[in-house]
């Protein structure tokens, strides 16, 4: 039936179009406002987290006492051990020692009260002005904390993102497959395996190393590339991939089964919704029903659970990288803690805080994208 519009209706349509254009602009502004608010909120969270970290890393100022004692001890050693002070009278020597201690304390800023300095620390930390490390150096030889961290960040991100992407897509695929054959043997096995995710990924890492590196000798024990690293780019890449397999497998093993179990259950619940039944009645193909009527509406809760998983894995990264000798941030943190290298520790925590905030921010956005009910800008629509 051809549709004839009266002029009035056409005008109405035009207005409608204009309105939708305006609406789009409004949407964009709302989006901006929403992002700004999210950034501020997340930044505040980072500030609080980092400040707490500074307090803890300095043991609420007690580390200052330790460092003062250390300075006094060093100066005393220096003065006693040096022949040039040997024939000075005791009082003069005391004076010299006091002035040396004072100079050293001022150099390290210990003459100011801790609370004041903690605020400076916070400012420096947040602006990534991370100062110099006390003991650690970067592989290139720099003592700048920023350089040390930037050197270690890419391997961590590389390992982490690879593992997460694999977990997400493999998990989604397996969960969907299982939900299709709910109650089958395979399904029962996967459900039974779900509790294995209670063990952290590094735990699996140890076993993987034992089996594939120690026993079978097919894969390397750890590190990111072979030593010495191959010159050829292709060879280098292949070597990295070989070294990547075990740690990625460890992370995936540690997270996959629980995710699959969880997501499969979501799929099962969501496939009982009335609109799925409706889609069947509409004669849509099985694939289409699965994609549009089961997967799409189930994505928001899946993304939430995945987000929580990511945060857990960020934390587990520390031990995992140590187990695999992976030159990333986690292992750096482990080393820094061993050496009481406070600037490096704080630097890493700051970076972690920023990464977490970024993760949350990105996922907030994805969430708003996949679920129209999550309205940006606070005017949330309700759902039934």
């Amino acid at each position: 039936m051809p549709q004839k519009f009266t002029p009035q209706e056409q005008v109405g349509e035009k207005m409608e179009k204009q309105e939708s254009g305006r609406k789009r602009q409004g949407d964009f502004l709302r989006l901006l406002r929403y992002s700004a608010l999210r950034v501020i909120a997340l930044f505040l969270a980072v500030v609080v987290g980092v400040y707490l970290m500074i307090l803890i890393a300095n043991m609420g100022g007690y580390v200052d006492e330790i460092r003062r004692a250390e300075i006094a001890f060093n100066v005393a050693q220096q003065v006693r051990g040096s022949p040039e002070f040997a024939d000075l009278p005791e009082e003069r020597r005391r004076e010299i020692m006091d002035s040396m201690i004072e100079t050293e304390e001022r150099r390290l800023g210990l003459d100011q009260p801790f609370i004041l300095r903690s605020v400076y620390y916070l400012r420096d930390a947040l602006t990534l002005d991370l100062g110099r490390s006390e003991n650690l150096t970067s592989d290139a030889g720099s003592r700048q904390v920023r350089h040390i961290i930037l050197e270690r960040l890419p391997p961590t991100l590389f390992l982490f993102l690879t593992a997460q992407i694999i977990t997400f897509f493999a998990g989604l695929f397996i969960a969907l497959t299982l939900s299709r054959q709910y109650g089958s043997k395979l399904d029962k096995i996967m459900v039974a395996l779900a509790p294995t995710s209670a063990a952290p990924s590094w735990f699996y890492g140890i076993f993987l190393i034992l089996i594939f590196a120690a026993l079978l000798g097919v894969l390397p024990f750890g590190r990111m590339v072979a030593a010495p690293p191959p010159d050829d780019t292709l060879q280098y890449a292949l070597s990295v991939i070989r070294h990547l397999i075990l740690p990625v497998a460890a992370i995936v093993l540690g997270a996959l089964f629980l995710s699959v179990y969880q997501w499969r259950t979501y799929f099962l619940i969501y496939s009982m919704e009335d609109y799925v039944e409706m889609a069947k009645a509409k004669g849509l193909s099985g694939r289409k029903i699965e994609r549009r009527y089961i997967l799409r509406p189930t994505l928001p809760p899946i993304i939430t659970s995945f987000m929580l998983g990511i945060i857990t894995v960020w934390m587990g990264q520390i031990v995992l990288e140590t187990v695999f000798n992976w030159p990333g941030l986690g292992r750096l943190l482990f080393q820094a803690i061993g050496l009481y290298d406070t600037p490096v520790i704080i630097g890493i925590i700051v970076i972690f805080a920023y990464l977490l905030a970024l993760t949350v921010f990105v996922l907030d956005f994805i969430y708003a994208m996949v679920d129209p009910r999550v309205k940006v800008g606070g005017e949330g629509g309700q759902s039934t």
Partner: protein
Amino acid sequence: MTRNNEQFRVENLYLSFSTKRGIVQAVENVSFSLPRGKTMVLVGESGCGKTSLGRAILRLLPRNVKEYRGNVFLNGQDLMQLSNEKFRREVRWKKAAMVPQAAMNSLNPVIKVSEQVIEPLLRRETKREKAGAMKRAEEVFKLVGVPLDFLERYPFELSGGMRQRVILAMALITNPDIVVLDEPTSALDLLTQANIMNVLKRIKQEEGYTFILITHDIATSSELADLAGIMYAGQLVEFSEAYDLFREPLHPYSQKLMASVPSLKEEKKLEYLPGQPPSLLEPPRTCRFAERCPERFERCDEEPPMVEVKEGHQVKCWLYK
């Protein structure tokens, strides 16, 4: 819109489910026929199998189906002979559509209304096909009285009544030969119910659709009905012209049912029916209604046949044999 005057016909339809506690006989030996452009109302209390019957027509069956047999003819074609895949592709929504019981929740919350409504029309999802489908969607939206800009909204932005209308529009979009309306108004308030019923009445008159209206609300459905069937415990116990059935019901159950409906025109004392319908888990071999029947006699221990009392008025009761 021209329609040939062929019929929709169900013959000896059986549907049962196997459950942990035994076999549930949801639909048993149901037969009826329906001319083009007419509306049949299927009345019965909760759990009498009327929804199962509606779903059986569209072959929307749960996993635990035990027995599903009989014949369903649409335009002279026996739908039961089609394979599942063929049935899905050729019959569902192309020839037979339905408005389900929980129409409120029958729209996918994360997909725009327009996309869901035009879906049954799309085969290859080309741009041109979509544009054509959108045109048709606008037509049916106008038909059921939904503002066109609702097409670009998400389901949660619509009220319950509007959602119901959208579902109705969706059911009409392919111009199907038969539409099963499964309690289309039961979740709505009275005013909205009346609105929807008026829409249905208008569509029926103007466009000549064939409806099967499943309901337990005799009063509202009587306005729409040409034919009426009464279901009791999985069986069709009476089937006739709606006017006849609502005026002079023959089956004791139908009589009791009609006596329980308030009427505007006359003063009457409403009656009620004591007892409960038999469980569909291994139902009795007797007349299903025997236990509650006020006019029970010896023969009621046997199952009665469907008796044609007069032209087009059938009743499943020994009283008329």
